[in-house]
């Protein structure tokens, strides 16, 4: 299947001994000039790259308190060393969160701290040489920014913040990652990550409407660019065609249909994902976010609802108000933005939809908490709602549900292995190995409870699992969308 070995799934999780350099060869393709320049980055390694990088590091430590505090505060206690799914899956010590941070920290110390300037050997400080830069490029693209380490750090040090900073420094000297930067450029040009233009999108949605009608006999609409609709739905573009994403999209449409609300998608803001976050670029993240504000204004909607996407929900929930607010032109009765899960959960609570659980009786389900939803956002009014709402929606849609082991769900959830801008074929080995802890937890419930399917609410998780599950002996279609379950169970026409 590939030129690497798929990790073996053990009965109980085992913390591996370190094996230096096992993933040093893992590097994503470097972005060429045409993918760098639309984002405002130099097209290739600049001549005085070392100095430019130092200047950028200084700028970033002055702009981000997280970075300034995190670089100083680590005491090397080791609490994070066994928490990263990439370390657990690869045994490469540079995939331990603290060691990954240290790749950045040792340069910071050398240039910006007394100890590092005068006693570099003592504190392990080094200059940013070409070798160090290569290590940065390799290992800062082995972090999915999932924040699991930050849960367990006594100071809350979040390696994601340092990975983002490192990627921004690398972008600023012309060493960008092709996958992320190409995609962001596509959003600027066309409006979504997939480069799906308006006519193609309209066509796709029409096809989905036909599918639903063939299947159910009910005319459920998937409107595009409809001015005056109440709700703008922003969803990851993978929802338009990828499996199982598209089944989720049809689920949203059916829910809106039953709720009797008017809604629309936008071709201008046809992307919930915001890869600006992955590359740590506030400016690019803001530029992508502003498209959503513009679409909401142009279409004259009253509310914004996001579809199933993990990092998109982080940017939407935590950052959208900051980046593209204030949203005082929207209906103040509703939070801005809302998650589709909040909408559906509410509707279920109010008895606004009828769900026939037996429609999903062919499945025994578990639920994968997506990292950005779990550790960087919320749903509903209470902390932890991000764990409760999806599970309640699933349980309302099916008869058989079992959670995976406690230390692999909720705030301790494991990343799918493909988040943070790593969902690219040139990182396949990393993605397969990084999925190991999640696969191990899944195997546990498969063996103990007969689980057949795992539901998720993140486009990246869904694509990643569909791709890597076969390496571990699971069916690629055993990953499902939560709204796919809703879609199966919903009784249409009941509320008309």
């Amino acid at each position, binding site marked *: 299947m590939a030129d690497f070995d798929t990790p073996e799934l053990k009965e109980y999780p085992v913390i591996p001994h370190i094996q230096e350099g096992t993933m040093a060869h893992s590097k994503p393709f470097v972005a060429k000039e045409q993918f760098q320049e639309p984002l405002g980055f130099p097209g290739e390694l600049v001549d005085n790259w070392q100095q430019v990088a130092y200047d950028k590091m200084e700028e970033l430590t002055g702009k981000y308190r997280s970075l300034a505090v995190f670089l100083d505060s680590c005491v090397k206690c080791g*609490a994070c060393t066994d928490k990263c799914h990439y370390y657990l899956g690869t045994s490469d010590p540079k995939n331990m969160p603290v060691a990954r941070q240290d790749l950045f920290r040792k340069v910071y110390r050398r240039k910006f701290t007394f100890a590092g300037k005068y006693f570099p050997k003592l504190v392990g400080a080094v200059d940013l040489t070409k070798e160090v830069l290569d290590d940065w490029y390799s290992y800062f693209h082995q972090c999915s920014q999932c924040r699991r380490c930050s849960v367990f750090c006594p100071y809350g040090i979040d390696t994601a913040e340092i990975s983002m900073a490192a990627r921004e420094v690398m972008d600023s000297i012309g060493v960008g990652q092709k996958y992320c930067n190409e995609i962001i450029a596509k959003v600027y040009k066309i409006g979504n990550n997939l480069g799906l233009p308006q006519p193609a999108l309209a066509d796709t949605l029409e096809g989905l409407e036909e599918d639903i009608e063939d299947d159910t006999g009910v005319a459920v609409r998937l409107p595009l660019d409809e001015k005056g609709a109440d709700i703008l739905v922003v969803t990851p573009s993978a929802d338009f065609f990828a499996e199982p994403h598209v089944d989720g999209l049809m689920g949203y449409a059916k829910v809106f249909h039953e709720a009797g609300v008017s809604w629309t998608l936008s071709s201008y803001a046809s992307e919930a994902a915001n890869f600006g976050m992955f590359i740590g670029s506030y400016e690019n993240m803001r530029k992508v976010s502003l498209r959503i504000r513009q679409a909401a204004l142009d279409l004259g909607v009253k509310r914004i609802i996001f579809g199933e996407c993990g990092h998109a929900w982080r940017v939407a929930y935590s950052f959208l108000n900051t980046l593209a607010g204030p949203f005082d032109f929207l209906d103040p009765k509703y939070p801005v933005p809302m998650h589709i899960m909040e909408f559906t959960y509410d509707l279920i609570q109010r008895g606004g939809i009828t769900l026939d659980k037996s429609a999903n009786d062919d499945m025994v389900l578990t639920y994968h908490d997506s990292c950005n939803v779990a550790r960087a956002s919320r749903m509903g009014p209470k902390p932890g709602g991000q764990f409760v709402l999806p599970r309640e929606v699933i349980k309302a849609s099916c008869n058989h549900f079992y959670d995976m082991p406690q230390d692999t769900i909720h705030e301790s959830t494991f990343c799918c292995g493909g988040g943070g801008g790593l969902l690219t074929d040139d990182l396949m080995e990393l993605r397969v190995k990084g999925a190991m802890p999640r696969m191990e937890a899944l195997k546990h419930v498969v063996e103990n409870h007969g689980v057949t399917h795992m539901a998720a609410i993140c486009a990246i998780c869904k694509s990643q699992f569909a791709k890597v599950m076969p390496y571990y002996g699971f069916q690629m279609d055993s990953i499902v969308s939560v709204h796919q379950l809703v879609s199966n169970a919903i009784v249409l026409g009941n509320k008309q």
Partner: protein
Amino acid sequence: MTFLTIVYALLFYIATALLIAGLASKIRQYAKTPAPLKIPTTPAPVTRTGVVMRMFREVVFFESLFKSNKWIWIFGWMFHYGMFLVLARHLRYFTDPVWTWVALIQPFGMYAAFAMAAGLLGLWARRLLVDRVRYISALSDHLMLALLFAISGTGLMMDYVTPTDIVGVKEFFRGLMVFNWQPIPQDPVLLVHLALVATLMIIFPISKLLHAPGVFFSPTRNQVDNPREQRHLSAWAAELEK
């Protein structure tokens, strides 16, 4: 006035000045650096009071560390709380009359010194024996443990092996506080103990000991989870909107 008294008096003035100035400048830097985005590690409190509680649990009980690793937690807690009591106990060298609560904790402070030393040895053992922790340890990480252990070791020696002239020690430090220098007792163990303490004070603001103020400024722990309710905008980000 002996030469040693002058050296130690100056040493402690310099160490105190560097500690305070260094910490103040770091705290000012952290306070002035904006946190442009809401990044609390969720689930996070949705109110300011909730954040105070979270920080309290973090600083007092090491909540996250407890979730993470029970060995580091127990050794870390022994060390920090041992040191806290030992430091509190040392207040008797600076106060006259000695505050009642300081007098009351004197016996506990004695046990605390052992807990502190044992905690340090436990942490050091992990650093040497666990391959992951050994990998991430720089020379300075070992030296920091050596320094702290030597401080607690020399302190314990003065309690149990070669008692020192604690009345003289108190007069020396009380004198320093009012700029009326008194001779320092010429006890080698005491002199080593004090030199190491001064070293610790000096390196505090330029080392990983900055985790002490740092934890209070950590955005993943001190931010309120209310981004939808309240717009959060830093000064430099507001500039982009112009």
